[in-house]
C-alpha cells in the first residue's frame, strides 16, 4: 500500500512559505516497504504529518491517497479497519493508560485483530527489558519504560505502515539499538514501510529516504 501525498498543507500552515518544504504542498510518494525519516526542527509539523496520515487530524488541504482510497472520504468505521490492520502508530506522548498495568495496556490493543502470538508478545517484552514491570500500573513507570511498552503495543497488530513519533527520545543507546532492531525485524516480516519522526537523529536505523519538512 503506497501512500501518495498530493499537495497536502495542514490548515495551520496555510499562510507559511512552504517552497523549501520537502513534503508540504508537494507531490510525495511513500513506497510501502521502505523506511523514511521525517526530520525538522520542532514546531514544523512532524507530528502533524504523522497524525494526518493516521487520520487523527483531518484539517488539511490537498489529499492523501492509498490505491483508490482518499483520506478525506474515509468513514469512521473505515478508519477503524485501517487502524486495525493497515497502519500502526506510536503516538507522541505515548498514550498509555496510567491506571492500567503493562499487560492491561497491551490487552486493550489485543482485543483487536493481532499479528503476533501471545508468546511472541512476551518475547518482545523480555527483549526490551520491561517484563518485571508489566504487572504494575503504568503510572509508576518511567517515561523510557513506557516508550518501550508503546513500541510493543504498536507492533502487535498487522500493518503496512508503522508511524513512529519520536519513539526513542528517552532511551539510552543500548535500548535504542534493541528497539530499532525489533522494529526493523517486525516491519521486514510484514514487508511494511516505516515513517519515523525525529528531531534529527537517525537512530542507527537502515533508512531509504529522508523527508525534511
Amino acid at each position, binding site marked *: 500500500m503506497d501512500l501518495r501525498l498530493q499537495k497536502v498543507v495542514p490548515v495551520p500552515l496555510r499562510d507559511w512559505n512552504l517552497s523549501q518544504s520537502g513534503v508540504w504542498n508537494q507531490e510525495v510518494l511513500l513506497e510501502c516497504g521502505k523506511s523514511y525519516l521525517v526530520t525538522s526542527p520542532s514546531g514544523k509539523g512532524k507530528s502533524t504529518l504523522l497524525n494526518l496520515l493516521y487520520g487523527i487530524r483531518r484539517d488539511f488541504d490537498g489529499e492523501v491517497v492509498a490505491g483508490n482510497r482518499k483520506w478525506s472520504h474515509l468513514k*469512521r468505521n473505515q478508519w*477503524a479497519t485501517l487502524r486495525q490492520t493497515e497502519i500502526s502508530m506510536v503516538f507522541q506522548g505515548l498514550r498509555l493508560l496510567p491506571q492500567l498495568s503493562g499487560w492491561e495496556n497491551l490487552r*486493550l490493543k489485543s482485543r483487536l485483530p493481532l499479528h503476533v502470538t501471545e508468546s511472541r508478545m512476551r518475547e518482545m517484552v523480555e527483549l526490551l527489558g520491561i517484563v518485571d514491570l508489566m504487572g504494575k500500573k503504568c503510572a509508576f513507570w518511567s517515561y523510557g519504560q513506557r516508550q518501550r511498552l508503546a513500541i510493543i503495543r504498536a507492533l502487535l497488530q498487522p500493518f503496512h505502515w508503522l508511524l513512529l513519533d519520536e519513539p526513542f527520545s528517552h532511551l539510552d543507546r543500548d535500548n535504542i539499538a534493541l528497539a530499532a532492531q525489533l522494529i526493523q525485524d517486525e516491519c521486514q516480516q510484514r514487508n511494511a514501510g516505516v515513517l519515523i519522526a525525529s528531531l534529527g537523529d537517525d537512530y542507527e536505523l537502515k533508512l531509504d529516504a529522508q523527508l525534511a519538512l
Partner: protein
Amino acid sequence: MLRKVLWKNQGLGKLILASIGAFLGLFLFLFSIQFYQDIQSLLAKDDLFGAGFLVINKEVSLLNMAGVGNTGFRDNELEDLKAQSYIEDVAPFVHSTFRTYASIGLGGQEQEIRTDIFFESIPDAYLDINAEKWGWEGPADEISIALPADYLKLYNFGFSQSYGLPQVSSGTIGMARLKLKISGKGRTETFYARIAGFSDRINAILVPQGFMEYANERFGDREARKPSRVLVVCNDPAHPDLEQYLKEEGYETNREKLKNSRMQSVLRIVVGVLAGISVLIISLALIVFTLSFQLIITGAAEEIQLMLHLGTREGAIAGYYLKSFSLILSGLGLGIIGVVGYVKGLVIDVLQERGFEIPEGIDAAVWLSLMVVLGVFMLVNTVSIFQSLRKLA
C-alpha cells in the same frame, strides 16, 4: 478491565438516582394502568349491558294508582328523549300481553318452583349476550331468557336455605330448563326456556324480541299498553345535564348506575392525573440516565479516544455502555413487574374480603406499556451515546 477504562466508577450515584426515579415513575405508571384495567373489569363484569345503557321509567304516584294517569311513555316524550344531545338512542321495552306460568324442577324433580311470570323484551342488539346464546328462530319451542341477578341471589341465599336445596352458580343454572305454559286467545302451549344470563342493571325477565312479537301475536289477549320502561343509550352517562333532565321530567332510573358512571369518570381523571405525574417522573429519569451516560463518556473521553485511535469501532464502545444500560433496564423491568404483581396481590385480597372479584395476573396493557417505555429509554440512550462518541472521534 474495560470497566476500569470506560467506566472509571463515575456516575454511579447518578445512575442509582435515575434508577430509583425510573422505578418509582414506572411503578406509578404501570400500577395506574393495572388499577384502571382492574376497576374497568369490575364495573363491566357480569352485566349484560354496556356502560352507556340506562333504563328509565316514570314514578308511580297515587294518581296512577287511581287510574288517572299512567306510567306509559307517550310518543312525544320518546321523541324528546331522543332529541337530547347526550342520548344516542331510545328503545322502549315491549311487554307481554299473555299469561305465562313457569315451573322449574329442583333436586331431582321432587321440588318444583312454580309461578306466574311476565316477559319484556328490548332489541337484541342492545343485549350484551353473544348471538349463539341469545335469540329465537320460530317456531321452535325453546327460547332463551335473561333474569335479574337478584333472582339468583334470592334463590341462593333465601329459597335454597329455607328448603334445604343446593346452591347454584350462574354457570350451572345455564343448564337448567324452565318449563313455560303460555296461554291466551283460547290456546295453551308449552315452551322451554334456557337461562342465558343475569343482569345487575335491569329488573326484568327478558326474552328475545323475535319471540315476544311472535307470542304477543299468537297469544296476546289484550291491547299492548304504552311502554312503561325505556332503554336509553347514552354516549355520556356522566353528562351533568342528564340527571337534571330526568329529574325535571319526573323519570326514575337506577341511581346506582348513574353513580357508577360518575365514579368511572372520576376514576378516569384520577388515573389520568396519576399517569401524567408518572410520565413526568419517567421523563426526568430518562433525562438523568441520558445525562449520566454522557457524563461517564465525557469523563472517560481520553480513554475512549485512545481506544478509537487504536482502531476500536464506535459500535463496540457504544455496545459496552448499552450492555450495562440494558442490564439496568432489565433489572428495573423485572423489579417493577414483581412489585406491581405483589401490590396487585394485596389489592386482590382486600377486594375479595369485600366481595369483589378482579382477574388475577398482570394485564397485557401493563406489559405492553413497560416494553414501550423501556424501548424508548434504550432508543434515546443509544442515540445519545453514539452522539457523544462521535464528538470524540
